[in-house]
C-alpha cells in the first residue's frame, strides 16, 4: 500500500478505523473494508447514484468521495434503515409499490429519498420526482419509485405532530 492513512469514521452509528490509500473511495471502504455491500457501484463517475449514502445527513456519491475526506464524519448506508429485520416505512413502501426489480439501484434510491424527504418533508409528488431524477434506474421506469417515496412522504406528514 502506498502512503497509507489511518482513517476514523462512524458508519451506521458504529465507529471504525481503517488503513487506506489516499486514492481509495468511500464506496470501496464501505463495501470492501467494512463489508457493507448494500451500497452499490454503478458508474464510478457520479452520475448513476447507485452508491448514494448519507454523509453527515446529506446524500453524496460514495464513488466520488475519497475515504479520507470522510475522516471524522458520520455515514449512513442502506444497512441502517431496517430495524432488526423489520423494513422501514420507506423500504416497505418500495415493496408495496413495486419500486424495485433487480434491486441494484435500490439502496442508492432509498438513501437519496431519505435525503430528499429530510430536506423537503412537504415535497409534492412532482418535487419528489425532481429530487429522484438525480439517480438512474434501468428496470422500473421510475413511476413506482416516485409513488413509493410520495406515499412515504404523505404517511410521515400524517404521522407528524
Amino acid at each position, binding site marked *: 500500500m502506498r502512503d497509507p492513512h489511518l482513517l476514523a469514521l462512524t458508519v451506521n452509528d458504529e465507529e471504525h478505523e481503517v488503513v487506506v490509500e489516499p486514492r481509495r473511495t468511500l464506496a470501496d471502504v464501505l463495501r470492501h473494508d467494512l463489508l457493507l455491500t448494500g451500497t452499490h457501484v454503478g458508474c464510478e463517475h457520479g*452520475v*448513476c447514484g447507485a452508491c448514494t449514502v448519507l454523509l453527515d445527513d446529506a446524500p453524496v456519491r460514495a464513488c466520488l468521495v475519497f475515504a479520507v475526506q470522510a475522516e471524522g464524519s458520520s455515514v449512513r448506508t442502506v444497512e441502517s434503515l*431496517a430495524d432488526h429485520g423489520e423494513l422501514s416505512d420507506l423500504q416497505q413502501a418500495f*415493496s408495496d409499490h413495486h419500486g424495485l426489480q*433487480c*434491486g*441494484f*439501484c435500490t439502496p442508492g434510491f432509498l438513501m437519496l429519498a431519505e435525503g430528499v424527504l429530510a430536506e423537503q418533508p412537504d415535497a409534492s409528488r412532482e418535487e419528489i420526482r425532481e429530487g429522484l431524477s438525480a439517480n438512474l434506474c434501468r428496470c422500473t421506469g421510475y413511476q413506482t419509485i416516485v409513488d413509493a417515496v410520495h406515499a412515504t412522504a404523505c404517511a410521515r406528514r400524517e404521522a407528524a405532530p
Partner: protein
Amino acid sequence: MTTTDLPGVPPDVDPDQPERGERPATEPRFDGRRGRWVGASIPRHEDPRLLTGRGRFVDDIALSGMLHAGFVRATVAHAAITELDLTATREVHGVVAAYDAADLALGDIVAVLDRPPEEFTPTAMPILARGKVRFVGEPLALVVAHDPYAVEDGIEAARVSYDALDAVVSEETALAPGAPAVHEEAPDNVLLDVSMFDTPGVDEAFADAALTVDVTTRSGRQNALPLETRGVVASWDARDDQLLVQTCSQVPHQVRTMLARSLRIAERTVRVTVPDMGGGFGQKCVVGREEIAVAAAAQRLDRPVKWIEDRREALTAGFLAREQRYRTRAAFDADGRITALDVDVVCDMGAYSCYPFTAGIEPLMASAEMPSVYRVPAYRVRGRAITSNKAPTAPYRGVSRPQYVMAIERVMERAARELGLDPVEVRRRNVITEFPYTGVNGVTYDPGTYLESLDLAEATIRDEGWYEAREEADRQGDRHLGIGFCCFSERTGYGSEAFAKRKMTVVPGFDLSEIRMDTTGSVVVTSGTMNHGQSHETTFAQIVADRLGLDVARVKLRQGDTERIAYGWGTFASRSVTIGGSAVALASERLGELLCRIAAHLLETRPDNVALDGDGGVVQLDDPARRLPFEDIADVAHLRSHLLPKDVEPALTATASFDVPGDGTFSNATHAVVVEADPGTGEIRILRYVCVEDCGVVINPKVVDGQCRGGIAQGIAGALFEEVTYDGHGEPSAASFIDYLVPTATEIPDVSIQHLETPCAFTANGAKGAGEGGTIGAPAAVLNAVNDALRHTGVELDTTPIHPSTVLAALEGEL
C-alpha cells in the same frame, strides 16, 4: 402466516384443485382453471433482502486470497498489433500476472448457423485479441493484481503499438467496393445475407397498387445498460475438481458449455453459478470473452480472481444492439389494405458474432416476424448482418422487434396520410382478427387481442379528450401536440422448433425443473431460467403454490447453479414464465400426484379417493375428516420409508421438462402516446402514455405492470435519448453517462396500463411472456406521435433517437 394475511390475496377465492394427467405436448395444456395465488399481486419474495442491502451481487463476493483482474484494451478501432509488451506491467507494485492471447492460448468463441456459405459466414471471436484489433475497447491482455487499484496501474504500464487500418464505421463504409475487411473470412463485411421470403405475387401487387409507400427507417446503436455492469469471480476448487465461475449471466449453462470448450476441459469440471443480478436485458445472455479469460487466470494461478467491468468498459466494450436500417416498400389498395411488403434490412452487428445466437440474430428476427400484426398477402425480405469496427452486439430486449415494428408502423402512418384516412382506421383494416392465423411468413399466430387493444387504446385517448386538446393546440398556433399509436405482437414462447427454423446450431427451447419437498413440508423448486429483476422467485412460487395447494411462503425457487439442474437455457426472449414456468408447473403436478399416491396408501383407500386439499395436505374424498398434512406424508417418505407403498421410491421429488410446440405463442399490445414539441428548444415532452396489453393469464399483475413500465422506459430511451455514436475512425464518442443520455425520472412519464387476457393454450399456466413488449412498442408510438406533432411542417422523421435539434429545425422550416 396464513394465505389470507398476505396483501393482495383475495380471501374469498376457493382453492383450485386441478387434476392433471399426462398429455402430449402438442395438445393444449391450459385448461382455464385458476388458483388462489396466480393472479394476485402478492409481495415479492426478492424484496426484503434487496431492500436491506443483503442481496448478493457478484461484486459483493469476496473469497480468501482473491485477486483482481482488468483488461488492457484497444485504443484504436482497426489495426494490426505491432507490439504488445507487458514487461513493465508485470513489474508494477501489486501486479501478480499479466497475460496476452499467446499466454492463455484459449479456444475462440465461434457461433455458427446451419446455413450455406452464401448465406452465413462464421467468424471467430478470440478471448484476447490476436494479431489485430477490431474495435476500441477490445481486450488485448489480462492484468491480475492484489487490488483493483494496482490493476489500473498495471494496465497503464502496458505498451501497445498499432499499425492502423481504415475503420469500417457505417453501412456505407462496410459495403463500399474495396472497403477494408474487418474479418478476413468475410471480405465483403457481410456475415449474413438471407432472403427468407419471396412469396408469389409481390411484383404483381406493386404493379396493381393504388398506393405504394417507400419508407427508410433507422435506429441508433444502443446499450441495454444493466445498471450492474458485467463481472465474474472465478476460483479453482481442488476437492470438487472444478472451476467455480460466479458470474452475472442470463445463461449460466451456455457459459459453462462455451467455457469448457474454450479451456478445452470437460464440462463437468466447470460449475457456473449466478448470484443476484442487477439487470441484463439481453446484454448478459451471450458468453463474454472476459469471463473466460478470468476463469483461465484463476485456473492458472490457483487463486480466486475477480473482474468487475467499469462503466467506461460497459459503454464502449459491452455488447450493444439496435443499429438497423430498413427500406420498406408497401403496396396498398384504394381502401388502405396492404397487398404486399418488400423489405431490405441491414443490421450493423459490430466486430464479432455473439455466442450462441450469432450475428444473424437481428436480421433473422426481423425477416421472420416483419409482417407483424397485419394480414400481408405477399412478402419479400432480404436481411443482412454486416460487421464493422464497433463493439459487438447481443440480443437486446425486443431484438429487432422495436425496429421492424417501427418500420411497419411508419408504413401504416404514411399510407394513412397519403390516402387521407385516419391512421388507426388503416390499422383496423389490416390487423389480424381471426385466429389461429397463418401468415405469409409461415408463422401461425395463436389468439390475441390485436384489434381490441387498438380500439381500447384509441378510446382511452379519445375519452380523455386528447383529440380535442390537439385541436385546441392547433387553434392556438404555437403549440404542437401529436398523438401516436403502435399496434404489435411479440412471440414469447420460442420453443426449440421455432428456434430451429432460424437454423441455429445451438438451439434454445426447452427448460427443466425439479421439485423437492422436505420433511417440514416446504419445497425447493429449480428452474433453468435465470431471474434478474423479473420476480421469478415470486411468480414461480405462485405457480407452484397453486399446483400443490401450498402456502406460497413455503416455496423457494433456486436458479443459477449448473450443478442443480442438468441443463437450461436461461432467461431471454420473454421465455421464463411461458417455458420455465410451465416446467415448474408440471413438476409440481407430478409431486402432487406422488403425495396423493402415498397418502392414499397411508389412509388405506383407493388412489382416486384422495386429492390435494389446497391447504397443505391430502384429503380423503369420501370422508373429508380424514386428511394427511404434507408434513406427515413427507415424514414417511424420508424418515419411515418402510411405510411407503412398495412401488414408490423414497423421498419426495419430481422432475419435468417443457418445450413450446410449433410456432409458439404471441403476446400483443397497443401503445398510445401524446407528445408536445417545444417550439423554443425542439424538446419532446410526453404528456400521456397508455398501454393496453395482453400477455395471457397474468401470474402477478404488479409484476407485469412493472415489466411494461420498465420496458416502455427503455423504448422511450431509444426513441428520444440514447445512442452509441462513433467518429469516422471508430472512436466511441459516448464513453460516459455525460454523453450517453440515460433518461431519469423527469424524462420518463407515468404510464397507464390496461390488461386484456387471452389465455395461451400451449403453456401450463395460460401465460404468455411479458418481458419485452414495453420496449417493442414505445419507439414507434413515440415516433408516430412526434410526426403527428410536426404534421403541419411537412416533415416526416423516420430515425431514432429523435434529436431536439431535428425537431426544432422541422418546426422552423429548416428541414
